[in-house]
C-alpha cells in the first residue's frame, strides 16, 4: 500500500484511483465535476422555465412538467450544485490554508462525497422513472404527501442520503479546523475562508438534523402510512414548514458564508492589503451564523402564526443586516488605499458587492412582516433570492474557481476568456432578475406555469428570459475556458498572485502530502509575513521526517451504493412489497461495510523521509 498508486495509469487505474481516493484534493475534484454537471442541469432547467415564461399563455411545456421543472431546478441548484461546489472549495483549500496534510477523517470525507452523489443521482433518476418531484423545493405538506406517483419519494430519499453526506462533511471540517492547524495558527490567525468554513460547518451540524427529521416524517407518511401531516388523523401540516425552515434558513447562510470567506481572501490578495477589520469580520461571521438560527419563520409570515410571532421574527431577521453590513464596509475598506488588480477573480468579487447589497436590502424589505403579505410567494421573492444566491453564491464560486484554479489544477485560467465569461453573465443576470422585482409587485406570483395576457406582465417576462440566455452564454464560455486552459496554458508557479496565505507556499498543484514539513505560522497572512521579511517561503516547524498518510478505500463508494440500492427499495415497496428485498440487500451492504470498517485495522502508511529527500526541490 505504501508506494503510492502506480504512476503510469490507464483509464481503469485512473477511475479506481478516484473511486477509492481519500485525498482531499482529489475529493475536491470529484465535488467540482459532479457539482458542475448538476449546475449545468439546474441551469438547463432554469432555461426551460424562462422559455416557458417568455410569452403569456405559453404552452411550451405542460403544467405538470413545469412544476417538476421548478422543483428540480431549485432542489438541484441548492443541494446538488451550490453545496457540492462549496464543498469542492472547502476540500481544495481548507487543509492547505491551515497547514495540514489532510482532513481529520479522510475516509469520512470520501464517504460524504459518495453519499452526496448517490443522493443526487437518485433524485435525478426520477426523470426517467415516472416523473420528478413537483411540490416545490420546499415540498410543503400536504401537497407533497399527497402528490401522486413517486416523484416526491425520490425527493425524500435523495435528499436524505445527500443530506447525510453533507452532515458528515460538516463534522469533518469542524474537527479538521479545530485539531489540525499548523503550529502557530491560532484561531485569530486563520484566513477568513477557513473561519467561514468553520462557522458554516457548525450551521450544517445544527441545521441538517432538522431536515433529516422532516424528511423522515414525510417518508413515513408517504411510504408507511403514518399521519404526521394527515389532518384527518390529527396531523398538522405546519410542522413540516417549521422543520423545513429551521433547516432552510440556516441553509442559505451555509451557502453564502464560505463565499463571504473566499471574497475576503480575494479582496485582500488583489488589493495587496491585509483584510480591514479582521476581528470584526470574524465576529460578524459568527454573529450571522448565530442569528441565522433565530429567523427561520420569516418564510412563514403568511402561514398565520399571528402578529406576535411575526413581529418577533421580523425584528430578528432585520438584525442580520448589521453584521452583513459590517462585512460589506470592511471589504470596501480593504480595497481603500490598496493597489487593486483587476483579475477575473477580482472582477467577480467586485461585481458581488452591489449585487449582493441589492439582494440583501430586498431581504430586509421582505423581513418587514406586514409588507411580506404582499411580497410573499411572488417574483419579488424570486428576485431577492437570485440576487443573493446568484449574485453571492454563484459569483463567489466563479471568483473562487478563478482564484484557486492554479492550486487545484496547476494552471491559471485564461484571463481573456475569464472576462468573456464574466460580462455576459453579469449583464444577463441583472437583465433576468432586476425586472422580476417589479413583476412581483405588479401581481405575478411565483411558481406560475403561465401568466395570462392583458395583465401587463409581458415585457418584463420577455426581458427576464432574454437575460437568461446571456447567462447561459457566459457559462458556456467558462466551460470552453476550462478546456482551453487545460490544453494551452502553461504550468502555474506556486504563488501566481503574490498570495498571502499558506496554500500559496506549496507547489501548484501540491504533492499528495501537501506540506513536506509542517510550516510554522507567525502571524495573520503567514506567507505574507515571511515574504515581507524577505524570506522566500515558510519556515518549517519540524525537521524533515516520515509522513503519515491514510489508506485509500473503496468502502465509502460501496456503502453509498448500498444506500442507493436501498433507496430504490424504499421508493418502490409501496407498489409491491417484494421491493423490500432491495432495502435489505442495500442496507446489508452498507451495514456490512460499516462492520468491516469497524473491525479491520486501518492505520495508514508512512511516506519515508528518504523518499521525500529524493524528491528534493521545493
Amino acid at each position, binding site marked *: 500500500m505504501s508506494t503510492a498508486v502506480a504512476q503510469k495509469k490507464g483509464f481503469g487505474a485512473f477511475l479506481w484511483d478516484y473511486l477509492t481516493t481519500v485525498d482531499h484534493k482529489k475529493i475536491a475534484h470529484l465535488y467540482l465535476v459532479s457539482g458542475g454537471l448538476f449546475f449545468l442541469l439546474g441551469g438547463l432547467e432554469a432555461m426551460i422555465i424562462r422559455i416557458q415564461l417568455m410569452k403569456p399563455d405559453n404552452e411550451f411545456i405542460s403544467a405538470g412538467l413545469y412544476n417538476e421543472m421548478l422543483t428540480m431546478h431549485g432542489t438541484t441548484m441548492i443541494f446538488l450544485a451550490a453545496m457540492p461546489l462549496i464543498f469542492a472549495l472547502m476540500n481544495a483549500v481548507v487543509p492547505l490554508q491551515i497547514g495540514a496534510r489532510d482532513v*481529520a477523517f479522510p475516509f469520512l470525507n470520501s464517504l460524504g462525497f459518495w453519499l452526496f452523489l448517490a443522493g443526487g443521482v437518485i433524485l435525478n433518476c426520477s426523470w426517467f422513472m415516472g416523473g420528478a418531484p413537483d411540490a416545490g423545493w420546499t415540498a410543503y405538506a400536504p401537497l407533497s404527501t399527497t402528490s401522486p406517483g413517486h416523484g416526491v419519494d425520490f425527493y425524500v430519499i435523495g435528499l436524505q442520503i445527500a443530506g447525510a453526506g453533507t452532515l458528515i462533511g460538516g463534522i469533518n471540517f469542524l474537527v479538521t479546523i479545530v485539531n489540525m492547524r499548523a503550529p502557530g495558527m491560532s484561531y485569530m490567525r486563520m484566513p477568513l475562508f477557513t473561519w467561514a468554513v468553520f462557522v458554516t460547518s457548525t450551521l450544517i451540524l445544527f441545521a441538517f*438534523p432538522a431536515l433529516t427529521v422532516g424528511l423522515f416524517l414525510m417518508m*413515513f407518511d408517504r411510504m*408507511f402510512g403514518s399521519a*404526521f401531516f394527515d389532518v384527518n388523523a*390529527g*396531523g*398538522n401540516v405546519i410542522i413540516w414548514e417549521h422543520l423545513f425552515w429551521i433547516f432552510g434558513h440556516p441553509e442559505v447562510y451555509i451557502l453564502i458564508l464560505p463565499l463571504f470567506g473566499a471574497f475576503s481572501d480575494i479582496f485582500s490578495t488583489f488589493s495587496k492589503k491585509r483584510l480591514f477589520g479582521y476581528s470584526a469580520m470574524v465576529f460578524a461571521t459568527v454573529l450571522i451564523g448565530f442569528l441565522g438560527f433565530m429567523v427561520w419563520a420569516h418564510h412563514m409570515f403568511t402561514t398565520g402564526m399571528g402578529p406576535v410571532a411575526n413581529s418577533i421574527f421580523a425584528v430578528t431577521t432585520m438584525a442580520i443586516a448589521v453584521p452583513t453590513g459590517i462585512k460589506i464596509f470592511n471589504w470596501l475598506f480593504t480595497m481603500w488605499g490598496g493597489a487593486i488588480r483587476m483579475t477575473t477573480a477580482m472582477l467577480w468579487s467586485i461585481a458581488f458587492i452591489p449585487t449582493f447589497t441589492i439582494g440583501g436590502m430586498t431581504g430586509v424589505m421582505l423581513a418587514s412582516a406586514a409588507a411580506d403579505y404582499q411580497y410573499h410567494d411572488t417574483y419579488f421573492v424570486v428576485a431577492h433570492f437570485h440576487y443573493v444566491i446568484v449574485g453571492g453564491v454563484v459569483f463567489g464560486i466563479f471568483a473562487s474557481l478563478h482564484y484557486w484554479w492554479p492550486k487545484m489544477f496547476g494552471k491559471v485560467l485564461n484571463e481573456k476568456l475569464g472576462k468573456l465569461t464574466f460580462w455576459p453573465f453579469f449583464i444577463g443576470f441583472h437583465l433576468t432578475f432586476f425586472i422580476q422585482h417589479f413583476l412581483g409587485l405588479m401581481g405575478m406570483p411565483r411558481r406560475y406555469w403561465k401568466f395570462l395576457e392583458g395583465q401587463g406582465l409581458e415585457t418584463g417576462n420577455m426581458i427576464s428570459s432574454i437575460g437568461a440566455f446571456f447567462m447561459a452564454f457566459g457559462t458556456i464560455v467558462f466551460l470552453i475556458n476550462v478546456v482551453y486552459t487545460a490544453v494551452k496554458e502553461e504550468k502555474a508557479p506556486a504563488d501566481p498572485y503574490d498570495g498571502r496565505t499558506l496554500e500559496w507556499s506549496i507547489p501548484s498543484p501540491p504533492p499528495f502530502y501537501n506540506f513536506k514539513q509542517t510550516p510554522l505560522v507567525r502571524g495573520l497572512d503567514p506567507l505574507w509575513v515571511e515574504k515581507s521579511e524577505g524570506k522566500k517561503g515558510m519556515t518549517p516547524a519540524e525537521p524533515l521526517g516520515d509522513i503519515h498518510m491514510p489508506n485509500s478505500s473503496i468502502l465509502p463508494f460501496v456503502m453509498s451504493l448500498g444506500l442507493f440500492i436501498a433507496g430504490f427499495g424504499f421508493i418502490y415497496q409501496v407498489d409491491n412489497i417484494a421491493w423490500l428485498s432491495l432495502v435489505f440487500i442495500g442496507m446489508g451492504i452498507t451495514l456490512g461495510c460499516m462492520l468491516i470498517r469497524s473491525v479491520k485495522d486501518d492505520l495508514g502508511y508512512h511516506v519515508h523521509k528518504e523518499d521525500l529527500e529524493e524528491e528534493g526541490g521545493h
Partner: protein
Amino acid sequence: MSNEDVLNPKRMPHEPEKATLEGKNKFLGFWFFLGGETVLFASLFGTYLALNDSTAGGPSADELFGLELVFIMTMLLLTSSLTSVYAIYHMKNNDLGKMLVWLGVTVALGFAFLGCEIYEFYHYIHGEHFTFRSSAFGSAFYTLVGFHGGHVLFGLLWILSLIIRNAKRGINLYNAPKFYVASLYWHFIDVVWVFIFTVVYLMGKVG
C-alpha cells in the same frame, strides 16, 4: 508515531483515547456528532409534543401508558450507564479483562431494555390496537421512542462488535478511542431516555 507503537504502546498514557491525533479527532468528531443528535432528537420531541393530543379518537397517552415497565426500563438503562463508566475506568487502568466484563454487563442491560421496549410496543399494538398509523399521536409516539430504540440497538451491535474484535488483544492507542467513543454514545442514549421517560411517559400520565 509508527504503526507498531499505536498497536502496542510501550506505556499507556493517562488518556489513551486522546493519545494520537486520530484519537483526538475521533473524540472531538463524536462530540460534535452528539451536538447534531441533540437537534435531531429535539425535532422529534417537538413533533411529539405538538401531536400528543391528536389521538383522532384513539387511546390517549394517559389511558395507554403504564409506569411500572417504564420504571424498570429506566433503571436498566441508568445502570447500564454506570457499568459503561466502569468499563472506561478499567480501560484507563489498562485492564482489558475487567473492561470487557463491564462492557458485557452493559450490553446485557441494554438488551434487557430493548426486550422491554419490544414487549411494550407489542402490547400496545395487539392489546390496545394502538399503532403507528392509528393517529398522528401514534405516529409521533412510535417515531420518537422508536428512534431511541433504534439508537439503542445500533449501540449494542457496535459495542458487541468492539468486544468481539478486541477480545484477544490488549487495549492500545488504536482501539481505546473506539471504546471511549462508544461509551459516549451509550451515555447520550441515556440522556435521551431521561427526557423520554419524563416528557412522554410521566408528562403523559400527568396529562
